[in-house]
C-alpha cells in the first residue's frame, strides 16, 4: 500500500480527532491530536491499521507535557508518531494499557519520570525508580533539581 493510501486511511479513521498531519519523509509521519482522543486514536492504529506499538515518548516543554505514541507499520516501512499535549497543571491522559498490553510498562515509566497520570491503568506503580522515591519529584522534568532529593 502506498504511503498516500495509508495517510488517507488514517485520516478517515481519525476523523475530527486529527488536528494536523505532517509527512516528514516517505517513512515518517507526525500527527497531532487532542488529549481526549488518545484512546480512540490508539484503537484505530492498533485494530484498523494493524500497526505495532513501538513505544511512547514524553517531553517536558514550555507549553506543557507532550506525549508521543510511536506506531510502526512494518509492511510499509512507515513510522507514524501521534502527538498530544497536556498541561503542567493537570497532566492526565487515558491509559491505553487495557487493550494494548505493550503500553503497560511505558505508561508506568512516564508517570514516574514525568508525572503524567494515566487514568484506569491496571497496575500503576514504580517501574525503574525505587519505591521510596520522593513524591512529586519527576526527574525528566526541566525543573527537577538533584539537590532537592532526600538522601537515601
Amino acid at each position, binding site marked *: 500500500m502506498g504511503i498516500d493510501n495509508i495517510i488517507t486511511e488514517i485520516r478517515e479513521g481519525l476523523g475530527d480527532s486529527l488536528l494536523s498531519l505532517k509527512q*516528514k519523509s516517505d517513512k*515518517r509521519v507526525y500527527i497531532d491530536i487532542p488529549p481526549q482522543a488518545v484512546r480512540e486514536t490508539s484503537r484505530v492504529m492498533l485494530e484498523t491499521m494493524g500497526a505495532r506499538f513501538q*513505544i511512547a515518548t514524553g517531553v517536558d516543554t514550555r507549553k506543557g507535557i507532550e506525549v508521543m505514541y510511536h506506531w510502526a507499520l512494518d509492511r510499509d516501512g512507515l513510522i507514524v508518531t501521534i502527538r498530544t499535549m497536556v498541561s503542567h497543571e493537570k497532566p492526565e491522559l487515558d491509559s491505553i494499557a487495557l487493550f494494548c*498490553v*505493550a503500553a503497560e510498562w511505558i505508561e508506568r515509566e512516564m508517570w514516574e519520570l514525568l508525572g503524567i497520570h494515566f487514568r484506569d491503568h491496571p497496575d500503576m506503580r514504580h*517501574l525503574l525508580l*525505587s519505591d521510596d522515591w520522593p513524591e512529586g519529584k519527576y526527574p*525528566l522534568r526541566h525543573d527537577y533539581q538533584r539537590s532537592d532529593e532526600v538522601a537515601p
Partner: protein
Amino acid sequence: MSKRTIVPIGPYHALQEEPEFFKLHVEGETVVHLDIELGYNHRGIEKLSESKDFEETIFLVERICGICSTSHPLACVQAVEDAGNIHVPERALFIRSAVGELERIHSHLLWLGLAGHFIGFNTIWMWAWRFREEVLNILELISGNRNHYGMMKPGGVRRDINKTDIPAVRGLLDKLQDPLKLFRDTVIEDPLIGARTRGVGILTSEMAVAYGALGPTARASGVAIDARRDHPNAAYEMLDFDVVTCENGDVFDKTVVRILEMFESIRIIEQCLTKLETVKGPVDSDPKCVAPGEGVGVYEAPRGEVFHYIRSDGSNRPVRHKVRAPSFMNVPTNRETVLGGTVADATIILAAVDPCYCCTERMAVAIDSHGGEELWGARDLIRLSCEKTDRLMKETGWRGPQPPENLFDNR
C-alpha cells in the same frame, strides 16, 4: 487449595549477570504467576543525554549495554541523521552493516553459551565463547576494541576498513562455518537439549503481537518482523538475506532462530566485504550541525528492534533523547511463558528472551506465602535446573554432545 509460594530470583543471583528481581508464584512445582521488578540498572541515560552534545551522546549511548554496543549508537546516529536530514556516504553504510552483523554473531554466541550454562552443559558455554573470541579479534582489528567499538558518528563511521584487513575478516567467516554447523546440529539432534527446551516456555504468536515482542523472541513465535527488512537502514536495502522464523515459540525455537541467524549474518558480511572492495569514497560526510527537527532511528539489534528518538533545536545538544531497547518489550512476555512450567524450567525460560536489563532500564526465591519460610534459595534454583538435566541423562543414558575430532585443529 494447594499452597501458593513465592520464588524470588534475584536481585543478585548467581545465574544472572545483572541484578533484576523476578518473583515466581508457585503452587507445588508449577509456576502460576510472575512479578518482575526492575530499576537496579537504571542510570538516567535519557536525562544525561540532554546535557551532552551529539558526539558525546554517542559515547554515552554506547555504554547503555556492553553486548549491543553497536546497536544503540547505530540507532542513535540514524535518529540524528533523520532529524537533521544528514547524508551518509555509501561506503559508510556497508561498514555499518558489517560491524552490526559481526556484533550479532558475537551476541548470539554469547547467549548460546549462557543458555548451555543454565541448562547444565558447561561444555557448550566453553565452546561457544571460544569461537566468540575469534569474532572479537576481528572486531578489535577493525575498530580497535573488543567491545564498545566507537565506530559510529552522525554522518558516517569513524574508521574505515583497510583493504589489507578484508582477507582476515573473510578468514574468520570461513573459520566459523564448521562450529556453527556443529551448534546447529547439536541443538536440533541432541535429545537432552530437546527435552529441556522443546515445548518449554511457549509464547504464542497472538501473545507475541499483543506484547509487541521483537527480534528472535517474536520470530520464534512465527511473527516475521525484522527492522533490517521492514525499516531499511544502513546498507540492508542493498543486501540479500532471509528473515528466519519458527512456529512454536518455545525455548527450542528461540535457540534455533538465533543459530540460523548467525548463518545469515555471515552471508551479509560476505556481501558487505565484496562491496567494500569496489565502492570507494569517504566514510564520513562530516556534518557541522544538526538542523532543528525530530527524527526516529530504528535498528535490528541481536535482541530485536532498538528505537531512538531525537529532537534537535539546532544547537549542539539534543532537546530530548528517547531510548527504547528491545528487552523492554520482550521481558514482559515472561509473564506468559513461565506459566504452567516448573521451577526448574523457569531459569531457562527467563533467559530465552536474551534479556538485557542494562538496555531496558537505562532478582528468585521461594517463600511460603503462609508462613514466610524460605523454601528455595537462589542457588537452589540453578541446582534444580542442573539436577533436571542430570536426571534426564540417567534416564536416557545419553552423555551429551561430543565434538568432531578435527574441530580444534589448527586454531
